[in-house]
């Protein structure tokens, strides 16, 4: 059957193109393409799952390792060897006063008077030359301790309104420079730190064995 179209050639072309579009408009890619793509999606999901599992396993292993190694370590004091007490310095213009109530101990030793050289030194020195940070029996200090020297103030720094008292030790050589003789390798000291963390003053203390009644 002849199904001819008469008229304007451009209009005929437009109609023929529309027919062609309808005729070829229902095509679809083969089923194999869809299956291959589905496999890729599934593989991707599997890879992500495997990666996530691996990451979770690694995190779990790290936690287990960290916990077990921490448990294996001996319990140590959280602060290396010092105790700190906070004190408020009275309105001294040049130097903070030692906090009240800290000199719980006892008597001031007469031998604690520093030598003239040490007295001259204490004004120029910002603090002890070296401070050892070995653990110390802090609790023992309080019993029978004796103030061995006056406070050596660090006049190079402005006074601090608030201060923290830290007990520490300096080596015997440093103590010697302040005119303090130490029987051991170290000498116990109290250091007064300002709120800026810089040392403001230091004094030597002596720990005496607890007297038995």
């Amino acid at each position: 059957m002849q199904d001819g179209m008469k008229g304007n050639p451009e209009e005929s072309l437009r109609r023929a193109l529309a027919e062609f579009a309808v005729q070829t408009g229902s095509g679809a890619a083969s089923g194999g393409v869809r299956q291959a793509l589905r496999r890729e999606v599934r593989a991707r999901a599997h890879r992500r799952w495997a990666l996530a599992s691996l990451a979770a396993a690694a995190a779990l292993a790290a936690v287990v390792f960290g916990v077990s190694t921490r448990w294996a370590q001996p319990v140590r004091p959280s602060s290396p060897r010092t105790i700190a007490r906070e004190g408020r310095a009275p309105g001294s213009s040049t130097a903070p006063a030692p906090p009240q109530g800290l000199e719980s101990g006892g008597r001031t030793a007469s031998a604690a008077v520093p030598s003239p050289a040490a007295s001259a030194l204490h004004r120029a020195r910002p603090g002890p030359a070296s401070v050892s940070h070995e653990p110390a029996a802090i609790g023992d200090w309080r019993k029978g301790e004796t103030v061995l020297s006056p406070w050596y103030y660090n006049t190079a720094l402005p006074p601090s309104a608030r201060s923290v008292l830290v007990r520490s030790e300096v080596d015997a050589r440093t103590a010697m420079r302040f005119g303090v003789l130490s029987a051991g390798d170290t000498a116990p000291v109290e250091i007064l730190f300002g709120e800026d963390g810089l040392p403001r003053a230091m004094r030597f203390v002596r720990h005496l064995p607890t007297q038995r009644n």
Partner: protein
Amino acid sequence: MNPEPKANESGRAEEMKLLKRLQAGDERAFDTLYSRHMPPVYRYALRMTGSQSDADDVVQELFLELIRSARGYDPERGELRSYLYGLARRLILRRLPAEAPANDDTPEPAVEDDPFERLDLEQRLELVRTAVASLPAGYREVVVLCDLEEMSYADAAVTMGCAVGTVRSRLHRARAMLLSRMERWKCRTA
């Protein structure tokens, strides 16, 4: 206030979500996107290449790229459909044999007689198929996009990466070429 931009935005946001789910390996997201975008892409590829296996390959490569990364897709700049057409175009043009650039200055002879006169549907379809396949790629794609896919000139310009005016002029010339070739073939067969 025009609600269309909002609808477009929500549509893009939804497609972006589907795309992310697809890349995470969600098969349902794949099914949704595949059933939505495969037919037009396949048609475009088939009409451009004239080969089912090439069209299959284009669809497969295109969705693989979508699954793996969809690099270059920015929902702020356009719809996923436009992005897919652009991607498909790249894949199709890679498959087509290299051809000499068309000489736009040569005028097509005017066709006065209707080339479809006294042809039945099957003959007309065959004539159109042969004529479209014989066009240079640059003209074929404008006919495929605008006349067969019924894409707007603006969307076709985005897909082809050219100005709307270029689309118009190419379409005009492509139609003239189609008519001229059909007329010649009809005379020959007659």
